């Protein structure tokens, strides 16, 4: 019942955005039904399209969970972008440096590296927040700039000559594509890190609602003063939450570096760290909602490629922005109505 009510806002946001988007399509002289139809057919009509959606949804689940976990602890982690860039770079370096190692060691090593690098990148803003109350929004943004600059700088040595990518990681660090197991997905880049994303969503749900730590984390996020009075170590809880958030964002590196290209490439992220904020918002900071929202944004992203001969590719960006606007305003409106009923 409650879950159903939670779905109303996001669904209305999606429908509203598609309706407004239809207006834009009509303005550029196309038939909205035809364009949406083509989009749906391209995205869901064949295994390749579905594989593309899963592939694009994977990093969004990681960053969406990262942002949502921060939100649950009352922290706005805008640094998922920097955390995933640093983590992907670290994975590429570790995967290439120990290229000869067997998968049974190298694969877990690379996954742990991704999480540790992401967590490490979230640590300075976390400590600054806990110790001196410096606002994490500013500091995670600053860490994004540092991340990009640092990767550029280290790239002088690490990148293959005249490119912006690193050398290939070892075979033992590669995450198999799904097509290796399910021939159904032939040709699409979706890989087993999609399973990792699903596990991460289950883990976050378990952490938040089954563990004592998750209970404390939610209390800190909702009412820090009450949490303090109840004897919960608020600063420590925040530091751990933001580092876990960074670790989740770091897992993006598994999809792109380990599961797809096999190397780090500057600009690979395409802003998934920032889009993760939209995913968390639309998914109402709930793991199940985040999985659905990630799939939606992924479908929109791939759908934009399908129809880019008919309408400008900016349409997809406009649709994304409208979904976010609708999600925010509808959320506020629904909360207000709910409160009035309850009052």
């Amino acid at each position: 019942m409650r879950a159903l009510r939670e779905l109303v806002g996001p669904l209305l946001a999606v429908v509203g955005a598609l309706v407004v988007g239809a207006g834009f399509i009509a303005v550029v002289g196309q038939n909205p039904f035809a364009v949406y139809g083509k989009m749906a057919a391209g995205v869901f009509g064949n295994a390749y399209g579905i594989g593309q959606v899963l592939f694009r949804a994977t990093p969004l689940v990681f960053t969406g969970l990262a942002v949502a976990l921060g939100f649950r602890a009352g922290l706005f982690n805008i640094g998922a972008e920097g955390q995933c860039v640093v983590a992907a770079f670290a994975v590429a370096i570790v995967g290439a440096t120990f290229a000869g190692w067997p998968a049974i060691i190298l694969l877990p090593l690379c996954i742990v590296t991704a999480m540790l690098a992401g967590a490490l990148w979230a640590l300075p803003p976390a400590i600054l927040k806990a110790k001196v109350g410096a606002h994490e929004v500013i500091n995670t943004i600053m860490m994004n700039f540092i991340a990009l600059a640092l990767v550029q700088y280290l790239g002088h040595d690490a990148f293959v000559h005249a490119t912006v990518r690193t050398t290939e990681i070892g075979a033992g660090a590669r995450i198999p594509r799904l097509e290796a197991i399910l021939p159904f997905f032939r040709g699409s880049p979706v890989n087993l890190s999609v399973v990792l994303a699903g596990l991460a969503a289950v883990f976050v749900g378990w952490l938040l609602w089954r563990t004592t730590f998750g209970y404390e984390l939610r209390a800190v996020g909702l009412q820090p003063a009450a949490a303090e009075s109840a004897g919960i170590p608020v600063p420590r809880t925040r530091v751990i939450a933001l580092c876990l958030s960074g670790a989740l964002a770091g897992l993006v590196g598994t999809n792109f570096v380990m599961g797809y290209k096999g190397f780090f490439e500057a600009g690979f992220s395409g802003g998934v760290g920032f889009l993760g904020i939209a995913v968390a918002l639309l998914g109402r900071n709930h793991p199940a909602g985040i999985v659905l929202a990630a799939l939606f944004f992924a479908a929109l992203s791939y759908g934009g490629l399908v129809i880019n001969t008919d309408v400008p590719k900016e349409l997809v960006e406009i649709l994304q922005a409208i979904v976010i606007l609708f999600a925010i305003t509808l959320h506020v409106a629904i909360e207000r109505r709910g409160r009035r009923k309850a009052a």
Partner: protein
Amino acid sequence: MKPPVIELAGIVKTFGALRANDGVSLSIEAGSIHALVGENGAGKTTLMKILYGLYQPDAGTIRIAGEAVRLRSPADALARGLGMVHQHFMLVRPLTVAENITLGKETTTGPFLDTARAAAAVRALSDRYGLAVDPAARVETLSVGQEQRVEILKALYHGANLLILDEPTAVLTPQETEELFAVLRELKAAGTTIVLITHKLREVLDLSDRVTVMRGGKTVGTRETAATSIPELAELMVGRPVLLTLEKKPATPGAAVLALDALAANDDRGLPAVRDLSLTVRSGEIVGVAGVEGNGQAELVEAVLGLRRIATGEARLGGVRLNGLTPRAIAALGVAHVPADRLKRGLVLDFPLADDLVFGRHHEPAFRKGPLVDRAGVRAFAAARLAEFDVRPPDPTARAGNLSGGNQQKLVVAREFTRDAQLLIAAHPTRGVDLGAIEFIHREIVRQRDAGRAVLVVSSELSELLALSDRIVVLYEGRIVHETSAAATDERTLGEYMTGRAASVPGPRA
């Protein structure tokens, strides 16, 4: 009988499914003091907000001096002579008294403010009604009682001939209350009509000419003050007879549980808030802490609980030194705590009742299995406590934020009073709580004492302290300036010490 200056008929105001005002009719006589009483949620504030133009009624009519009006904004209400003194003052603190009073209707010479004329106008008003206050003083330097006078003067300056006062005595000392009442009688004599919203029935009897009782969004009765009594009004408010006196046996104090020795702590700005405070609370006794708010009560409680650093001195609980221990460690030694602000500190409003009932106790073995929450354990505990403490609704999945103030406080009490504790600290345990719940909470506090716990009660309601406490200490500027048995004192005496007017007793090391 004089003609009514205000007549409300059939006022209805709904918020979603809630009918906050459900056919309210009220007639207020010109030049009278009319009290409006009722429990929290009875609809008093909604009604006054309608009268002040902040809410629009869904149905019903408002007549002012016989004329049907629609009040669309506070400016509308003010233009018709209605002024409001809110419970939380609406003053610009860095500005002077005169600037605050004339704000919105400034005295000017050409394009410039004429502060001299403003000060003169304010002085003239304050002289006329005996509301002494310095027009040039900055509001932030004033006492609460003085701030309230500024609010009243502001309403008068803007032409109000009817004043609505929302819980005006909630923040005042007994002396300030008496001064306020003198002012209100003066205003009445000058022809001003006064509507007094309150839940303190004694004040109603002291001051008002007539009293209207609200319950459940309806007016349930209007009485001539001279012809009614506190028990009658209480019964009208609650809807059943209420036990107004607290039955308790004489205390049998045992061993010292909490011992504070020359304790000092600073406030959030780093200024001394608790100074050289020594106090012992024994098992089986209730010690009340009286004082005007902001005299170190909050800091004292926080220092004992480990939420605030002890600057110097020492706190011991049953012989264990508390200095430097974490809040969790101190709670684990056996301290239960009802926080002053249940909405901000006592509960997580967005949590279901079950989660709030173990909040702060969630790491006790009964509620966890290793790192996991023992959901069955929490649910069983919650269901039992909700029934035992008669929390409504008794639904462990309901959100705490949706409960009434009284039921929220019962939730906190159910959690804290069932702790395995030697010491119970209750700060403002009945603030904003309805009469029925007050009765219940007071009985439970006495039961805690009789079960052998040491109880420390902080309250700004002297009647509450006098009823509950065995011993009372008065805090003034962070020091204990008076200590007495509750039986040997009264509100007036305590009030003298609270305002620092009475000579302080020499402390053990003063």
